């Protein structure tokens, strides 16, 4: 078990390292000159060259890579080309916002998905089960930004229940909840629909497992059997799916953050790309990638906790 964790961590680190190479060299081919982008329409060539030197973007790529990658993992992500302030605090702030938003989204998604998927599976060939499936099917088809726009239109502009956008930190309490409600809902609705379908599939799969029949043969009622034996088994594939969904949520957040003017990784990324704030883009992309890999790692480590079959690797 311990060996497995060490091994999995080793693979994780290796993966992160390769990913950092990919991120760096992928972005190094970006056209558009960060220095020129900073200086605006009427800067002279000399001014631009000077800024290039100041930013260090005229040095050989390997040197830049080493500096960036060592910095990234020591919490010094460099100085933003655009804001001229250290990247790390900005990225970390944005990361915090995005994580909260994604967490909210996952919460909403789970709250929607688990009951909906469960009911759709249990009532499979009955009218209400079909209705639940249809609802989730429709939910998937709506682009999440459209859901966001509609939520703003209804709950913010027309009903004035929630602000139309912006952000408040968790410390702000009720204000935080008011601000996160709509974006988390927009993010969670669509992903909840997707998750509901996976839940339905997983529960259906589990319901036809032999051990469910064994449970019934012991004298358990179907509902009890599903609760006592089914759900835990259905969790195994669902956890994996949730980790994949996590990547989708993070990327869905890019769009939702734009719609709701939330200062998360996504809106920062879009702006940083626009500003050719290369170092910012790199750090954000790397953050997203590491996050996705981290969640995969967590899920890999979590699975054996739930599923004893995976524990006997040694």
């Amino acid at each position, binding site marked *: 078990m311990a060996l497995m964790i060490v091994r999995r961590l080793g693979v994780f680190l290796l993966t992160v390292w390769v990913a950092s190479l990919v991120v760096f060299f992928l972005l190094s081919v970006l056209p558009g000159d960060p220095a020129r982008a900073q200086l605006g329409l009427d800067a002279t060539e000399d001014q631009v060259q000077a800024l290039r030197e100041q930013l260090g973007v005229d040095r050989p790529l390997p040197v830049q890579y080493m500096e960036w990658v060592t910095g990234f993992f020591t919490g010094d992500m460099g100085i933003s080309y655009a804001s001229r302030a250290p990247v790390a605090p900005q990225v970390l702030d944005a990361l915090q916002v995005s994580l909260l938003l994604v967490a909210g989204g996952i919460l909403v998604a789970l709250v929607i998905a688990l009951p909906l998927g469960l009911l759709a599976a249990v009532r499979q*060939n009955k009218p209400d089960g079909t209705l639940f499936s249809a609802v989730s099917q429709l939910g998937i088809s709506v682009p999440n930004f459209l859901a966001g726009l509609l939520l703003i239109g209804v709950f913010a502009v027309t009903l004035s229940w929630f602000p139309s956008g912006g952000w408040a930190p968790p410390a702000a309490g009720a204000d935080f909840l008011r601000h996160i409600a709509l974006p988390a809902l927009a993010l969670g609705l669509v992903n909840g629909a997707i998750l509901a379908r996976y839940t339905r599939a997983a529960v259906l799969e589990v319901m036809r497992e032999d051990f469910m029949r064994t*449970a019934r*043969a*012991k*004298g358990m*009622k179907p509902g009890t059997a599903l609760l*006592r034996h089914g759900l*835990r*088994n259905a969790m195994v594939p669902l956890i994996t799916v949730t980790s994949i969904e996590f990547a989708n949520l993070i990327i869905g957040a890019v769009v939702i953050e734009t719609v709701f003017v939330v200062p998360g990784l996504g809106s920062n990324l879009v702006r940083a790309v626009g500003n050719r704030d290369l170092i910012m883009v790199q750090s954000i992309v790397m953050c997203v990638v590491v996050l996705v890999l981290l969640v995969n790692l967590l899920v890999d480590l979590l699975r054996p906790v739930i599923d004893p079959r995976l524990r006997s690797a040694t």
Partner: protein
Amino acid sequence: MSRLLTAENLDISAGSGRIVHGIDFAIDRGERVGLIGESGSGKSLTCLSLMGLLGDGLSATGSLTLHGDTSSPETASDDLDLLNADENAFSSVRGNRMSMVFQEPMTALNPLMRVGDQVAEVIKLHRRAQSASLPADQPNATVEDRVLDLLDSVRIPEPARAARVYPHQMSGGQRQRVMLAMAMANGPELLLADEPTTALDVTVQKQVLTLMAEQVERAGSSLLFITHDLGVVSEVCDRVIIMRHGRIIETGPIDQVFTRPEHPYTRALLAASALRTDHSSGRLLTPDTVDAAAQNQHRPAEDRLSISSSAEAGSPAAAAHLAIAEDGSAPVFNQAESPVLEVRDLTRSYGKAGFLGRGRVVEALRGVSFDVAAGQRFGIVGESGCGKSTLLRLLTALDEPSSGSVRVNDQAISGQRERRLRWLRQSMQIVFQDPMGSLDPRMTVVDIITEPLWNAGRAERLRRAKELLEQVGLPQGAAEKYPHEFSGGQRQRIAIARALVTRPKILIADEAVSALDVSVRAQVLNLLDDLVDEYDLTMVFVSHDLKVVRHSCDIVAVMNAGRIVECGPADAVFDTPKHPYTAELAAAIPRMKDNVA
């Protein structure tokens, strides 16, 4: 004896299609009934309908009654209409008055729950009823104690430890014992067992069966036992029901049915199951030939060798009968002058030490040496996982050995590039166990059969395919069809046709008949026999079924845990085994009780 269960006019249908057609039967208290029939005849569905566990889309009509017990006043119970019982009534019966052991022990237990908890669950579920039926000597036993007792009673070693492990940490046989413990936990009046041992090794099968009979006996339960294996039924049951195509075609006490079968199908089943041969032709009896041969008194398979040896007068001198030595050193078995197949010190291990020493090494083969002479039929038997398939993959150069060598016609084939093995692909072919799995469902029969002919033209292929279809007894029209349009036996014929299309010298058969119904099995074995003669083939034949090997082969090698432990002429090996494992194996074969055979 009082009646426990009555089924009258029981119909089971899927949608509009009827699967079980109005069957009637009854089970008495303490009676042990065997339910036999070919695959798909509706045995499992009948059983599930008793438990009220028919799947979605299936429905049962007629009447099914579980009779109440009036013998002792404190455990008195009422009659229960099993077809119309509601979920509440049913759930108090299942696992309590009636319980069931399923076919597949690997998946019948919840993989995420400790074994002990799963056993405890069934006790807790029926606790109130349970407290009454607890053995008088331990009235205050806790659930935990009871679980350990149960595990102990089904002979699971170290019950305390076993209760804490997860199902995947147990072997199949152990899991099936846990299932049995669960089923017997509340001393059921009726135990339903649906092929509870087919997934297990022969030696383990034997143990589990004995255990089951014992438990049922002790608890005084009735038993409804489903199986394909007539030998098993004759050992365990009092009475037998024979089903075919959703109907009961014959029923009666074992002695009567097995000695004086009335229905032709029963007769065929008995014949095929014992691999009896037609006295005059030396061919196995099949359901179609059994009636014709009924007059010619059938003789058991044990005679086979004497019959075939006359046909093979020119075969090499009888091989030596050797076993592995006490110290574990193995001789070269079946050594021959100029062998077609020469295997020396072959080992194969799977898995690597791996990153951080994680990998696990499985030694599938641990030093195997033997020869096969031209024209010999070389049989290999052994339990599941002993390395039979691994050995065959090495013989056919589909895998690389870890060490050792395989020579075919004096040419080394291990470690060669595929391009230099073309001659081998022409002269050696293989037939696999699963007739469905070995045919690509998306290819037509012509394409399948002519797959080994890689540089023949379209017309040539068609010609050869038709030729072979005829030889294996399939109509010409089969050529353009797809595998799913054939039955299992027909598919195996197609697989055999493919193996013969290159006119090979050596045929390797990996469990070629194991997946077939007993009745079809005889037909395919006959076909193989004929073809081996006609093509003058050298054959290596693998099976876990000792009877089949004994019937089909001259030489038998017994494998255990990656080694050949004994090898020699078939009769000699089975009749006078030299190695204890062989003896164990031979003893485990369920035979018809002497009085019925």
